[in-house]
């Protein structure tokens, strides 16, 4: 809804069209996020390579590639993008195991609650943005420190 949101890109991956449609409809109703949906994880990876993204939500069981492998690939390309997995019951255990492996931000169980889902997505995005801001600040500090160092050297040069 905010300007911030409209510049935010969320990638949804599920081999079930009905899930993609439900989720994207909900998000378009409740948020201003830019939502990209993919039935095929490979296609999603292609997109992620070429575009800046803010969060990836993926199904676990998919015929081409399972959600954990897919999110592992996403991590390689966009390590700062929070990754959320959507699981049915059968794969819950594996999903939990994989949280550490691929650094999942959260997992959501089907059938999900829309409000809960939204909170998780917002938290993930906020976290990403905070991390980004933190990095920028650190960079700024580093730059300032670098300048300080240079100045310090110049001062030394001048006076010694």
């Amino acid at each position, binding site marked *: 809804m905010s300007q911030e949101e409209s510049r935010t890109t969320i990638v949804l991956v599920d081999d*079930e069209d*009905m*899930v993609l*449609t*439900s*989720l994207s*409809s*909900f998000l378009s*109703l*409740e948020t201003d996020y830019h939502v990209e949906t993919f039935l095929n994880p490979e296609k999603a990876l292609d997109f992620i390579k070429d575009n800046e993204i803010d969060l990836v939500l993926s199904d676990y*069981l998919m015929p081409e590639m399972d959600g954990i492998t897919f999110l592992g690939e996403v991590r390689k390309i966009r390590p700062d993008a929070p990754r959320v997995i*959507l699981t*049915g*019951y*059968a*794969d*819950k*255990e594996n999903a939990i195991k994989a949280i550490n492996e691929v650094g999942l931000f959260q997992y959501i*169980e*089907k*059938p*999900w*609650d*829309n409000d809960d889902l939204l909170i998780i997505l917002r938290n993930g995005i906020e976290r990403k943005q905070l991390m980004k801001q933190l990095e920028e600040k650190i960079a700024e500090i580093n730059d300032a420190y670098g300048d300080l160092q240079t100045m310090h050297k110049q001062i030394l040069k001048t006076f010694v």
Partner: protein
Amino acid sequence: MNATGKDEMQTLRESEEKYRKMIENANDAIFAIDTETARIIEINPKAEELTGFPASKLIGMNVRDLHPADEKDAADHLFKEVLRKGCAVYNDLHFMTRSGTKVAVDVSASVISYGSKKIIQRICRDVTERRKLQEMQEAQRVYYEFILNMMPVGLGVLRDVNAVPSVEFENKRLKEMFSESAEDSATGRWYDRPFQTGVPTKAMIDDTGVYAEERYYKDGRVYQFTLSYYRNLEGSWSELQLIRDVTERRKLEDALRAAKEHLEQKVEERTLELRKKQSQLVQSEKMAALGHLVAGVAHEINTPLGALKSNNDLAIRSLTRIKSYLEERAQSGLLPNHTDIIKLVSSVEGLDTINKTALERIVTIVRSLRDFARLDQADQDEVDIHEGLDSTLTLVHHQFKNRVNIHRDYGKLPKVSCFPNQLNQVFMNILVNSSQAIEDKGDIFIKTYSSADRVVIEIRDTGRGIPKESLDKIFDPGFTTKGAGVGTGLGLSIVYQIIQDHRGEIKVDSEVGKGTTLRIILPIR
């Protein structure tokens, strides 16, 4: 008188002549000995031959001097005995011949009248050869007896078995056998000691005449008798008995038989155990398969369910916005004929409550299904018994619907360390049984309570009950009262096994026509 006396003298002389000739020609040595001095008065030629001494030497010799030094006493004894009794026979004496050899003699002595005088007549026979033969025979007999005594088998001969039996022979072993157990219970000898049972092992056979049987005595010993009969030299019947002590062998055989029986029993027990385990395994495999199926189904249902739930939510959110938009518009008078539209929207909103309930019910069923299978908790865990009962009740709900009322009386239970999916199966089996026991309408009461170290789950139904004679069989595998095809007969045996595995107890109380109560008692830890 004289003439007659002359005749008598004549006859006497003639008979004396005859007698002398007889003596002279006799094959035995004959000595006439003085009753006073024991000296030889007269001899026959055979006496010279036997002793080797000429008549001149013999006559006048004291008869004891003919015997070797060690028989002097015997000779004196013989002399006195003859005088005392009139006659005597000694068959164990010897003469020392002139050449110094020892000759065995049988001596028969008697006092006879010789005219007016009394003398001792000794008839001596050379029995050296016969004695030697006898000694040889005796040695042989001793040897054979030795062999018979050496035999490790009791051997005895009874003679006159057809009349008054008497023992002719018994060997050493036989005597030992019947003396070592000479307790009061074992009186009687080998051939007449009373025995408890006799088991014939070989029937009497005409051509061999052998009969064998085993006799069991009161003192626990078992002897095997082999009896054979033969006609002895006197023509009466003798019985040869061979007796073996087979006590140890029988004991071994008994032990072996007992061991075999024990083994068979063990095998049977193990087989039963194995069969139980197998049925349990089959059942738990079924459960595992069901668990996988349930997990798969849950997964498959959850995806469309997720979409449905989300879409329903989405539709209502949209409707709510439409409604408020319409209301805003209506308030500002921009929408003249709005009440019908708002009514329509409201009715759809009303449906949402039903949709939500319906969806929640599906979610609960799916969750119960997977909780029941508890694939994620196949291992021992701290479990809330009430959760297990509730998810099981949800699953068997269709069995009760409008027919059976469930009454829950849950106490405060601590978490119990157990295998949750196994325990759920226990609840399922019992609840299904209970509902099947209720023919028309009835109630099931579930009560839980706990003590310091155990929890109790009581499931009581108002069904038809179990007859007394079946009560102790209901946990046996294969026992079923349901018709063919209705039950496997494994349900309660699996229940029993699972409770056993949890070191718990299951008790049953039942009254025909009133109902059944099953009480599960589980240790908390």
